């Protein structure tokens, strides 16, 4: 009794084989990530210093630091967020809490999904046409940030809508049955319970926006500027574009410099991703239903 049959043994072998196969594929997946990170740290690490972060490029961008680019990226992302978050959250609230289930809502949802699929270079050209030329903002932080905002909107909307819909329907019913209006329900119960999910979505968006190059290339980011931007109507340098420039456009750049820039860029993104994850875990721990 209970001894393995030949069939059992064959099934066990097959099972072990597949387990190995899937493990191998998972490992293959993380290998590039590890290679990228180690290469960046090994080759770019030595150029990192406080000076590197806080001084301007010198000698035709073959030496010096990256401060204007770092500063510019923060500007671009901040202005983009100021536009995309209020707009996106408002749209998500409408779609989740107010919109009736009819053809118009479905068309809007379809449009949002398609907007998310538009390649970033197309967003860039749209930004040139709309913000740089039509609205006359010129190549400026404003044009670049608006372009980034349009590009990130769909993700903000989808993430916000999903966190709104994750709030149990029973909460809304409880409010309505005490005579709360829809808006009172949203403000007092739905939003406070959805805010962690919304913020997580927003932070993830920030990290994506940080690395985008195409949308800002023609709309507001400059090759090299000897000064920092003074307002949103100025052009600015940006980390992502700077990386592109020092890697391919400028002769005589020491090998370590682009690696250093890439390392800073990826560190910013990873930092924000971890903040987002930590934040989500913190808020998850706090709520229970």
């Amino acid at each position: 009794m209970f001894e393995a049959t030949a069939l059992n043994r064959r099934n066990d072998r097959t099972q072990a084989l597949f387990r190995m196969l899937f493990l191998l594929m998972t490992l293959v997946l993380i290998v590039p990530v590890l290679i990228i990170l180690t290469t960046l740290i090994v080759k770019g690490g030595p150029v990192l210093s406080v000076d590197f972060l806080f001084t301007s490029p010198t000698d035709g961008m073959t030496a010096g630091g990256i401060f204007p680019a770092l500063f510019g990226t923060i500007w671009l992302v901040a202005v983009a967020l100021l536009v995309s978050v209020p707009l996106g959250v408002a749209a998500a609230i409408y779609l989740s809490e107010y919109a009736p289930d009819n053809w118009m809502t479905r068309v809007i949802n379809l449009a949002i999904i398609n907007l998310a699929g538009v390649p970033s270079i197309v967003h860039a050209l749209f930004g040139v046409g709309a913000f740089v030329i039509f609205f006359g903002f010129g190549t400026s932080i404003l044009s670049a940030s608006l372009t980034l905002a349009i590009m990130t909107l769909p993700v903000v909307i989808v993430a916000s809508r999903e966190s709104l819909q994750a709030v149990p329907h029973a909460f809304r019913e409880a409010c309505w049955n005490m005579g709360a209006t829809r808006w009172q329900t949203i403000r007092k119960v739905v939003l406070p319970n959805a805010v962690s999910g919304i913020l997580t979505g927003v932070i993830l968006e920030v990290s994506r926006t940080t690395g985008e190059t195409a949308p800002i290339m023609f709309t507001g980011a400059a090759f090299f500027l000897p000064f920092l931007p003074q307002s949103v109507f100025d052009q600015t340098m940006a980390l992502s574009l700077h990386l592109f420039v020092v890697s391919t456009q400028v002769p005589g750049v020491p090998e370590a410099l682009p690696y250093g820039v890439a390392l800073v860029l990826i560190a910013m993104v990873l930092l924000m991703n971890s903040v987002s994850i930590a934040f989500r875990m913190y808020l998850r721990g706090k709520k229970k239903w």
Partner: protein
Amino acid sequence: MSKSPQSAVDFAIHTRALNLWYGSFQALFDVNLDIKQGMITSLIGPSGCGKSTFLRSVNRINERLGYARIEGAIEVMKRNVYDPEVELIQVRKQVGMVFQRPNPLPISIRDNILFGHRLHSKSKGDEDDIVEEALRKVLLWDKVKDRLKDKATGLSLEEQQKLCIARLLPVKPSVLLMDEPCSALDPKGTEAVEELIWELRGEYTILIVTHNMAQARRASEECIFMLMGKVIEHSATEEMFVTPAQAETADYIEGRYG
């Protein structure tokens, strides 16, 4: 037995030729009901007989579903709640609802109790009294008075359900609708909540949907039996369970279907 202060001819809810459709499906047929003020009336019948639908049309929570269409009238305290001039918020204040699954908001016990009050009143001064009075009324005060700041979602299901009843009271409703209020509770919790409902009669008109025949018999004074969207019988609970007038009622009570 009845401590109803009003004479028996006062009706809290009065419906006339009430018909309701979900899309093309008719869920209620010519419902004519007079529900006595200050009494506990239970609604029984097999699943899908329309008892929850009826309950949900009294405070107009049904109309959230865009495809529900209603004809006829439901008068609550002698006013047709489907009159276009009626303000929905006022209807909801007057007619409170308790759900099958306790649904306290994920905020403190105290804030749950004050939620409705704060929606409708700007004065803040008497909040402590309101909390105590409401919690006393649902027999919860002694249990939770030292942890009013704790999250309501941490209470036991029985306590949560009592809290859900308590938080309706500061808004001063006259009718309480209960949609199977005990079905998520264990027998002990059920007994406690039934006891509470019994305590509240007289002061509030209570309409309670239940699948539990014994509960209808124990915890209500009048009983309505519905079948396929129609009211089959409406009488004193004792009478219905001892001498049902209709054959369908007798069959259901004795467990021959449903």
